[in-house]
Each structure stands twice: as structure tokens, then as C-alpha cells.
């Protein structure tokens, strides 16, 4: 039985009011949060949410489209560096910062389109997509790490090799009586609004005929092709969308900390989006957002004692999830909870029909 990622059954008809309200609850809580905590803390919360875009992109690609890409951090870095280069060249006006953000997104979308064209029109399938994207990511990291010399300058911006770029201006808004800098609370609201827009858009897209076609491709590419679906175009489009969301994360991260280093793209960082999405449950983008925020918070908290502990915990969580709860931790917990309360078995889920012979 094929089931779309989340709530493809038109929500207005079937679902009672209460679950829909419950679904809104995290957003309401998130919007009320800065009223309770101080500005500094909401800046930190913004940091947790910044990563969620990359997770949403990966959940859309992997959960819905069956494309496991390890390249989210490549586009993360690409757009982060682009933001740095553009803003360091154009100065710190509001126009410069916003065009930095937009050009960053355009560059990562362009890069994703190029790579995706090579992948999908080259008929690369399954795990090989992961290998190609991972290789691209690692080569990009190697390239950025060796740009320490003074010859690596784009306009005013030095790439600075392994130390990365620093000193990028934050986002500003033009306002009466001088521009307003978006930081702490206001940056939190910006990220939250963007996230809500991205969430609503992605949900609609994945529930639309386009999203259902992706599910069909994931479950059985040959059958989907026989039905007249252009597999390559669909996969390329969702790949570009997912990677651009990774790029959005990168640009926002660069704005938040006003620095970006090549290690943001390395092997360890590249594992992170996969860990968040696999843990939270790759079939649901809402779960991906919550899972990412919680796991980023957890690793930041553990990193106080040493980043090794945080990474070991992340690895252990991932291993546990893959072995014990392949649908993800949140669906796993909610299934158990449903069983405890109602003693009814959970509804049947569609498992990926990955066969070993496919590769």
C-alpha cells in the first residue's frame, strides 16, 4: 500500500478539528517563545531552527523521492560563501545583504541543477547518488581549505582557506530613521516566518500530484515510467528544491554567526542532515523540523563537554534508529504511545522496497 508522506488525504474533509489544532501548536509555541525568554536566548533558538531548512530539503528528497543525497552541506557551504563574497564586496547596506542572500540561493540552485542534471540524466541510481554527492562535497571542502593564499581573492573578499571567511554584515531592513539590523529576536522571527513559509509550501507540493508522482517513482521507478511519468524531470526538480533549501540554511547560518569555514562541508558535517532526518522520521517534514531543532540543541549542549561526545551520541542515535526504528524516532515513539493508550496496532506503513539487486 502506497501512502504519501503526510496527510495527503485532504485535511478539511476527514480530519477532526483537534488534531489540526495540535498540529498548529508547535508553531504557536514557537511564535510566543521570545515573549518568555530574553533576546540572547531567542538568538540561540534561531540557530537551532536555521538548520531545519536543510533537513526539510533532505526529508523531501529522501522520504518522498527516495533520493539519498549526502550533498546538503555542499550547497550549505556554497551559498554561505556566496553570501560572504557578495556582501563583503557590496558593503553592509540592506540591499547588499538581501542580494547576498538571494544570489546565494540562486548559486546553490544553479549548482544543484547542474549536478542533478549529471546525476539524473546520467541515470545514476540509488546509493550511487549518495556517493557522487558525497564526493562532490568532499572535493569542495578540499578546494575551499586550500584557498589560504592571497591569490584567492574575489573582489574585496578573501577566501582565507581553512580559517574561513569572517566579518560578513547581518541582514538589515530599511526603516524610518535608519535601517534596522535583524539580530536576536528579530532574526528569530525572520527564520521562523521563512520556516513556516517553506513548511507550508513543501507540504502543499508534496501533497500535490507532483508529490504523489514522486512517491510512485520511489516505490517503483519502472512502473512510474510506464505510466508516463517523466522520472528524470521529477527527480531533478525535487533535487534542486532540496539542495536550494540546504543553501538557504547555509546563507542563514553565515548571517547568524557572520562566519563560514570549509569544515561546515566536511565528512562529519555532511552526516548531520542525514542523522537528523533519519532520526526524526524521513517521511514527515514536520517531524524533521522538530527533530533537527532538538538534536542541534542536544549536540550544542553536549559540545560544552567536548564536541567528540556530541558526535559520538549522534552516531549512536543514528545507529539505534537504523536498527530499531527504521521509520524514525518520532514515528516510533508515537506508535508505541498509540499502542499504550489504545492497544491498537499502528496503521500499516509503506516500506521502501529497496532490493539489493537494484544497484
Amino acid at each position: 500500500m502506497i501512502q504519501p508522506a503526510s496527510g495527503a488525504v485532504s485535511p478539511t474533509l476527514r480530519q477532526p478539528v483537534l488534531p489540526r489544532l495540535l498540529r498548529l501548536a508547535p508553531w504557536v509555541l514557537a511564535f510566543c517563545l521570545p515573549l518568555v525568554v530574553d533576546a540572547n536566548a531567542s538568538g540561540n533558538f534561531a540557530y537551532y531552527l536555521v538548520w531545519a531548512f536543510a533537513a526539510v530539503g533532505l526529508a523531501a528528497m529522501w522520504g518522498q523521492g527516495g533520493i539519498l543525497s549526502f550533498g546538503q552541506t555542499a550547497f550549505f557551504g556554497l551559498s554561505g560563501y556566496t553570501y560572504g563574497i557578495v556582501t563583503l564586496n557590496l558593503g553592509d547596506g540592506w540591499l547588499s545583504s538581501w542580494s547576498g542572500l538571494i544570489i546565494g540561493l540562486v548559486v546553490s540552485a544553479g549548482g544543484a541543477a547542474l549536478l542533478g542534471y549529471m546525476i539524473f540524466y546520467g541515470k545514476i541510481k540509488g546509493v550511487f547518488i549518495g556517493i557522487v554527492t558525497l564526493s562532490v562535497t568532499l572535493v569542495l571542502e578540499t578546494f575551499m581549505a586550500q584557498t589560504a593564499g592571497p591569490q584567492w581573492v574575489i573582489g574585496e573578499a578573501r577566501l582565507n582557506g581553512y580559517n574561513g571567511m569572517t566579518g560578513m554584515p547581518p541582514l538589515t531592513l530599511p526603516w524610518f530613521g535608519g535601517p534596522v539590523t535583524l539580530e536576536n529576536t528579530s532574526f528569530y522571527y525572520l527564520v521562523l516566518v521563512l520556516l513556516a513559509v517553506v513548511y507550508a509550501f513543501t507540504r502543499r507540493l508534496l501533497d500535490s500530484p507532483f508529490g504523489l508522482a514522486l512517491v510512485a517513482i520511489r516505490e517503483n521507478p519502472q512502473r512510474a515510467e510506464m505510466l508516463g511519468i517523466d522520472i528524470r524531470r521529477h527527480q531533478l526538480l525535487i533535487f534542486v528544491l532540496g539542495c536550494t533549501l540546504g543553501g538557504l540554511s547555509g546563507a542563514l547560518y553565515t548571517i547568524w554567526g557572520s562566519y563560514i569555514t570549509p569544515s561546515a562541508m566536511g565528512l562529519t558535517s555532511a552526516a548531520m542532515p542525514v542523522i537528523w532526518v533519519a532520526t526524526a522520521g524521513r517521511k514527515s517534514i514536520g517531524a524533521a523540523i522538530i527533530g533537527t531543532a532538538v538534536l542541534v540543541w542536544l549536540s550544542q549542549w553536549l559540545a560544552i563537554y567536548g564536541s567528540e561526545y556530541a558526535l559520538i551520541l549522534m552516531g549512536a542515535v543514528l545507529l539505534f534508529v537504523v536498527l530499531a526504528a527504521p521509520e524514525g524516532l518520532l514515528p516510533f515513539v508515537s506508535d508505541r504511545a498509540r499502542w499504550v493508550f489504545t492497544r491498537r496496532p499502528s496503521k500499516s506503513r509503506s516500506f521502501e522496497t529497496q532490493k539489493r539487486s537494484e544497484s
Partner: protein
Amino acid sequence: MTALSTLYSVIYQFGDNFAYLVLAALGLAVIFGMMGVINLAHGEFIMCGAYVTIICAKRGIPLPIAMLLGAVAAACAGVVIERLVIRHLYDRLFDSVVATWAISLIVQQTMLLVAGPSMEGISTPFGSFVFGEYSFSTYRAVLPIIALCVLGALYWLFFRSNYGVCARATIQNANMAQCLGLRTDHLYTLTFALGAGLAGLTGALYAPTMTAVPTMGTNFIVQAFVSVVVGGANVIAGTTPAAAILAVIQTALTASYGQLIGQIGLLLTVIMVIRLMPQGLGNLFNRTR
């Protein structure tokens, strides 16, 4: 004489790159070609081999035996990981990739905690020799020969030994092999251990030439992926020509434009090869056989 020594230096560079690509890829290629599992913990098996070799060599054990011990240690680690994790994921390809990545992360960071950010290495044996006007490291000149020996041993193992026949039968049709009385689960464990042991051997062989750090596996992993993707699922008939072709490209590009362009050239080659031959080079040989 100058022309001769320049020629030899080109051959030396080629041999060096070839040995690196072959040795980095073999363990990964065995596990992928035989079992269809992409082992992202490949680099950690390499690291395991290197560390065990260095520790043994420092205790005064002769270097060749220390290297063998390194390979054996990695193979044992492979058995443990296959039994505990990989075994449960044979029918879930994506999950096995993700799980090996988790293992890689855990092992790497645990090593960082336990062994510290770097360890004092051992010196390269054999010294160097002078040919014409260039000086070459003898050890690095010997490595391509060792790589060829390993390839030959693998060929014997897969095509001449009893294990090889059983392993190939299991790949072709696991159910049928099981019906004929083969213990396929034992064969999978053995094959995974073989792949891990080969990775460990790579680490052991390169241990005297590089500094031992917990993240040293990452240096090998791009080359390993590249060779396996270009070579396809065929372990010997795929990986060997793939490594040879890639070594030619890398040597030429590195000699004229530098290390980085060499790496980027490798990657572009891979993408072009995949675009033209999605099954990899090994498939060309399959068709004619």
C-alpha cells in the same frame, strides 16, 4: 640520461598514484561488489590497520609482521561489525549506508578521545635511492609492486580457491546457493572481513608514510569511491583498469597543474564515466566474456 630519469620519474608518479587508488579502493570494492553494501566506515578500517601497525612496530615487532597484524585486526573488527550491524540490513541498502556512516562517526570520535588528535608515526623504511638527477623513496617505489601482488592474490582467491567459488555462487543467486547447502551467512561474514582486512592492509602499508590521525581515513575515501564508481561492481576486472586510467589522468594533471586540479580532474572523470557508462568499466569485460 636526463630523459631516462624524467621518464622514470613519470612512471614512479604513475605507480604511486596507481598503488594508492588500487589499495584505497580494494576493500570497498570487495564489500560493494560481493555484497552490494557501500561501506562508509571504510576509512575507519584503514585507520584501524594503520594504528595497530604503528603500535606493534613501536613495541619492537618487525614491520612486515606488524602490518599483517594491522590487517588481521581490521578483519576482526569487520567480523564484529558485520555480526552486530550489517547482518540486519542486507535487504535495506540505504540503511546499511547510513549505519556504516554512524559507525564511522562513532569510531572516529572515540579514537579522538582515546588516542588524542595525533600519534607519533614510524619512519619510512628502506631509505631512498638516486636515479639520474632525482631521488626516490624506495618504499613508495615498492608499493605498486605490492599492490599488484595483492591484486594477484585476490584473483587467485576468487577464481581458484574453494572460498571464491562459493562466494561467487552466493552473489549470483543467494537462495540457490543456500539450497545447495552453502552457509551464505558465513560467506557474507567472511567476505566483509576480507574487505575490512584489505582496508586494514592499506592502512598498514601507508602507516609509515603519513601521520596517524583519527581522521586519516578521510584521505582515502574519495579515491576509494572514485575508483569503485568508475570500476563498477566487478572487483578485479573493474577496479584495476579504473585505477590505471584514473592514475594516468591524476599523474598528468598533477604534474602540469598541481595536486588540487588533479583531484578535481578525478572527480570530473568520474562524473563523465558515469554519464557514459552507468555500470562502470567492469561491465565492458563482462559483455565480452
